[in-house]
């Protein structure tokens, strides 16, 4: 018994713990991202406010925690609500990282001075047009604007090349716009930036005059197009893929890509940021880098049908290739101020009561 010194006890204890952690591996989707055995607890934890939903992102965060040994604690909610919460909490927020589903909430937080600076080597993982010029956010996946249409109501020959065709008489009462949804608002802000506020405003007013129908979000447009309640709608490409994956061939709608150089083909990116007050910047930067790593980027395109933005990963075959003439992604930095004016224009168009 005298051999069992306190030292050996500690050693035994340590090996017991080590033993259990070397056995731990992941299963399900997370295992597609990281299939090795989990690292020992690094004694750190990153707190994340995620506007990306758990069904898509949780496997990525599980893989990160397993591979690095850094714990993750997540508040899952709507991006807008989280931005409001971060604004309310200010420098006392427990969050280290904010993941946004669309650029708007990030622009809002940037204007409020609530975003921290991301490390240069993390920023360098993404192309310049998909990250902040001042280092406050990175894009980690993309969703492309498309026209979703009902197969039985719209003939191939009828399909438009540009959103400007939709103001034509032949589309009267047939088009759906998710006009107050975050991604539409962001898209419209870029539209104003690219084409000029006058042109964008006139387009929206013409759409309203042409009987465009309002829907609250992308999902409800895609669902309505599937049932044939509307013929065509301007949405993110993602939802129709998801609807087909869920409902199968019963879903009677398809995505249509507008011309490469049309504003209706914009890529809207989802973004990751650090909070200004994070006291855990190293682990948080590590998480951001992880989002941009090859296995995660591959996961985003293969499992969630999104466009990868880093690590040289190509979009999965199911996705239409991104155009060579890509007109660029949302310039969040311009969004902060542009946002208010966009909301005003959309409100004033009266689309929300169509």
């Amino acid at each position, binding site marked *: 018994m005298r051999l069992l010194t306190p030292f050996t006890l500690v050693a035994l204890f340590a090996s017991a713990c080590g033993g259990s952690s070397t056995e731990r591996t992941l299963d399900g989707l997370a295992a597609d991202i990281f299939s090795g055995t989990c690292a020992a607890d690094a004694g750190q934890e990153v707190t994340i406010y995620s506007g990306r939903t758990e069904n898509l992102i949780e496997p990525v965060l599980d893989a990160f925690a397993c591979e690095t040994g850094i714990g993750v604690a997540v508040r899952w909610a709507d991006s807008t609500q989280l931005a409001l919460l971060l604004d309310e909490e200010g420098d006392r927020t427990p969050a280290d990282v904010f993941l946004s589903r669309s650029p708007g909430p990030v622009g809002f937080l940037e204007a409020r001075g609530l975003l921290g600076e991301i490390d240069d080597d993390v920023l360098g993982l993404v192309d310049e047009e998909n990250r902040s010029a001042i280092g406050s956010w990175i894009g980690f996946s993309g969703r492309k604007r498309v026209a979703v249409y009902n197969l039985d109501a719209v003939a191939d020959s009828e399909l438009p090349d540009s959103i400007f065709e939709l103001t034509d008489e032949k589309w009267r009462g047939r088009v759906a716009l998710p006009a107050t949804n975050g991604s539409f608002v962001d898209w419209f802000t870029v539209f104003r930036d690219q084409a000029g506020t006058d042109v964008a405003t006139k387009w929206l007013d013409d759409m309203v005059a042409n009987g465009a129908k309002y829907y609250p979000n992308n*999902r409800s447009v895609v669902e309505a197009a*599937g*049932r044939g309640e509307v013929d065509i709608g301007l949405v993110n490409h993602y939802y129709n893929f998801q609807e087909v994956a*869920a409902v199968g061939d019963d879903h009677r709608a398809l995505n249509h890509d507008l011309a490469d150089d049309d504003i209706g083909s914009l890529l809207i990116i989802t973004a990751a940021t650090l909070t200004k007050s994070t006291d855990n910047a190293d682990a948080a930067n590590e998480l951001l880098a992880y989002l941009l790593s090859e296995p995660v980027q591959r996961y985003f395109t293969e499992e969630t049908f999104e466009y990868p933005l880093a690590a040289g990963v190509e979009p999965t075959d199911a996705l239409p290739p991104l155009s060579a003439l890509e007109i660029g992604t949302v310039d969040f930095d311009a969004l902060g101020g542009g946002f208010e004016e966009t909301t005003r224009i959309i409100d004033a168009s009266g689309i929300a009561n169509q």
Partner: protein
Amino acid sequence: MSTTSQTTPPRLLTLVGAVLAALFAFPTIYLIRRNFSSDDDPAGSAADTGLIELLTSERTLAPLWRTVKLAVTVSLTAALVGTALAWLTTRTDIPLRRLWRTILPLPLVFPTFIGAAAFIRTLNPGGLASGLFTSVGFDQAPELRGFFGAWLVLSLFTYPYVYLPVAARLQRLPGSLEESARVLGDSAAEAFRRIVIPQIASAVAAGTLLVFLYTISDFGAVQLMRYDTLTRAIETNYLGRASLAFALSLFLLALAVVIVGFERALQRRTHTATSARSTQSVGYSLGRWRVPGAAFVVAVGALSVGAPMIALIDWASDGLLRASRNGRPLTIDSEAVMSAAQNTLESSVLAALAAVAAVLPIAFLVGRYKSRVGSLSHSVVIATFALPGILIALSLRYWVLKSGIASDFFTDSKLVLIFAYVVRFGSLAMGITLVAVQAVPERFHDVGATLGARRLRRLRTIDLPLMAPGLLAAIGLVLLSTMKELPISLIIAPIGYRTLTTRIFGSFEDAFVAETGIMAVVLVAMSAVLTWLLVLRRAEHQ
């Protein structure tokens, strides 16, 4: 009925009432602060030039008018439907009464964003029931949208606010007056008008007020029905024009205060008949009206619960079938669903009990002592129901951070979550509890006091048994509403504390409809069991 009344409330009770009023006022104070201080809001405050002009412009007044129009029509419809259902299921011989009494409260548990979406999925053109429409000669199903769609779906989802209190009230009404009226030659209809209506009027009014307040604060249903109300303008302006959103929220609150005052004035003029403990209430044989009566109950049940359930079950079964055939696997497993269901159960039961406990002192102050402090607390509790949930969530976060050293303790605390639910839904318990308090005959008290029973003992042996159906209905209302609550559950819950509704929201946002369907079916099944246990079984064993 005795007219002697203890006019001065115990001091402690008044103090408790005042503290409760202050606690319930947290969101209102926050809202006023957001409107009238501009220091930390670069977008400016309500006092800034331009905003006042905007608030009184056509762009604001038109949605405001639509909100009022919708709230009035939904309130009237829910009052009629809820009262009729309560009478049919408690007083008549329509078939399967117990089944209906389990099913009819269930629309409360549908989060409107999912309930309305499922409703559309079933009934709109090309939907799951479109075969039904074409088989009866329609070209296609009518498109539910705009005012009509919003009115229909909100009426169907809010009638339980009237149904539950009125059913609880009808169960406790002495049958003797009705019997006498019948003996003296009144027809059933006359007896209903002369005897029953005056006795249930206060319960109907309290429930209808909730319907009104719910309707003006609803966002999920109106946006899916594409009816542009004030809440749409609020929700879509938070990021772009926060000051406008907060100013519009103040509009909602002002509207709520006006309508609450109106209801108080009305209640003062109605007379609450007292409850009886053991007298049998009158049961009516409907005779040739039995079939139309049953058809009405079936129709409401089929539309309000059946239609959304068809879509939810369709989504759920599609997903399960596909996963079992080696198609795309589900992103949730039974463990995840169980733990979310457990959290939902825990938080909603605690919130329901806490809410009833919180409003009980206020109900005594108002109902028994006609106290001013009580009246004020009562109005604060009820008007808060008109505030969007996200505002309550943000305001609590604000106050927690303001609480200095206590803020660490309160951050990520379940206590704050339950408190937030109580503030959000205390109003639901307030009206019924007040009616229940007022219905305890004062002569019982006088007798009890004469016999020397202490106050607490009187509460336990006299008041609570007589109030039981009302209190259980109050618990039921808060319980079902908390189970579906979204913004507070997302923003205030401790990190990692996930409920069925938050998981349903996440799944639905990214169009994981199978997962949405499965968890929504679990949510509805769970609430059916709870309704049966709480509101029905207990009440019938009294």
